């Protein structure tokens, strides 16, 4: 009986320790959420203005640019999967990966091959374990992503997108250098060197967890390129339809001047656009990750506390039983002596 009591006490102690750790992780995650949310908010003006610029330029007649027109018979699609580096965040990664598998299946039904670009340690581990080939892996920044991380990943995508579904990415640094050293320097996109030989793609999709509120985050798949101007215009339309100067605005947009001409402008907008989208997805995902972790850790703390309560009750019972037994032994012993 005494041994049992000791075991129970030990379990209570270790459970309390676990509760303390999960409580601390919950607090850390909670403080990260608000920071991550603030970053999502702060980056919004850029995304909004950028979309506006793109739309305006598109209306002014660069609409046959590869960014805007779906390719005929798309062969391959890139999927960017945004997961976390660390675990202990409930179903966060599982949801993203499930959504990814769904997207892969849908694309293959449409006759498109998928090639994966995975952000975050959990995602890369998942696909490596299943022996699935990945065109790109980026890890080490899932909780606090910065723009350089996003740009690095996005440039791989842009390179693949420019190459097209039937080709491979070729990196031609030398000729770029010559072009750059010319007097009239034009900013051209430079593919990252390690993108060499990666399969090209016709479409870019992003799977990430959208931060809707503290309690709801949903894994979402979005098509980034080619850009679907129609549907985005619908979104905007519903917002601005109430304002009376709508038709006025489109008149003015028709008179826009471009420097340089729209086609060239679009070429340099494309990589920045992909960067902005990937960055936005990463920020959203970071906020969701912290929220998911906070919730998972809160549940863990609550469970640990429940467990402690039950164990304390059990140990009290054991202690009481021990005392009762000792008393009855003493009473029994003195009775025997009295006789």
């Amino acid at each position: 009986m005494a041994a049992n009591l000791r075991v129970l006490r030990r379990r209570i102690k270790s459970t309390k320790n676990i509760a303390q750790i999960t409580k601390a992780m919950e607090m850390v995650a909670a403080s990260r959420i608000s920071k991550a949310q603030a970053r999502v908010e702060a980056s919004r003006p850029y995304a909004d203005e950028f979309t506006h610029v793109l739309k305006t330029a598109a209306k002014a007649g660069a609409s046959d640019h590869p960014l805007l027109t779906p390719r005929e018979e798309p062969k391959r699609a890139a999927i960017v999967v945004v997961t976390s580096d660390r675990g202990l965040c409930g179903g966060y990664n599982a949801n993203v990966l499930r959504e990814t598998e769904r997207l892969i299946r849908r694309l293959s039904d449409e006759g498109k091959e998928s090639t994966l670009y995975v952000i975050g340690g959990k995602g890369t581990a998942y696909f490596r374990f299943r022996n699935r080939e990945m065109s790109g892996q980026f890890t080490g920044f899932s909780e606090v992503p910065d723009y350089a991380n996003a740009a690095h990943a996005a440039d791989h995508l842009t390179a693949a997108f420019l190459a097209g579904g039937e080709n491979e990415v070729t990196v031609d640094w030398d000729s770029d250098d010559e072009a750059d050293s010319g007097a009239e320097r034009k900013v051209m996109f430079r593919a990252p060197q390690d993108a060499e030989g990666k399969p090209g793609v016709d479409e870019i999709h992003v799977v990430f967890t959208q931060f809707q509120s503290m309690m709801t985050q949903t894994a979402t798949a979005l098509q980034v390129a080619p850009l679907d101007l129609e549907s985005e215009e619908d979104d905007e339309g519903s917002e601005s339809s109430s304002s009376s100067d709508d038709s006025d605005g489109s008149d003015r947009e028709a008179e826009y001047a471009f420097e340089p001409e729209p086609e060239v402008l679009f070429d340099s907008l494309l990589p920045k656009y992909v960067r902005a989208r990937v960055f936005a997805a990463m920020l959203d995902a970071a906020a969701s990750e912290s929220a998911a972790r906070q919730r998972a850790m809160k549940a863990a703390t609550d469970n640990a506390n429940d467990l402690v309560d039950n164990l304390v009750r059990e140990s009290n019972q054991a202690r009481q039983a021990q005392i009762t037994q000792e008393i009855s032994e003493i009473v029994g012993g003195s009775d025997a002596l009295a006789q």
Partner: protein
Amino acid sequence: MAEMQVDVVGVEKKIWSGEASFVSARTVEGSIGILPGHEPLIAQLREAGVVRVDPTDGESFHVAAFGGFLSVTAESVTVLAELAELASEIDVAQAKDDLREAEHYIGESDDQEWRVARDRARARLQAAGESVEQ
């Protein structure tokens, strides 16, 4: 005096927002000065360049903008940049060091990255009001 709404927006946050009477910048095709009532324009800025803003109230200031675009309508100007820094936030000593380092390495190997670094350092110094030979 006429005024226009000016926003300087970086990827991570809005750098500055307010009323201004004049904006000047360097696009890939040349320098441009914008007064209120300018024709609608979308322009690509130099990869590393300086934007000057004259607010309606307050002193004019400079912003170092990297990888930026300019979107102009009759009553507003928006500068979109992948990285934007207010002149007051620029570390001049650091930028000078960067410039020296970049120029040193350009002499040795003609690498693109150093040239970008040099241009960035130059833009920072210009924005901060230091004289740099172009």
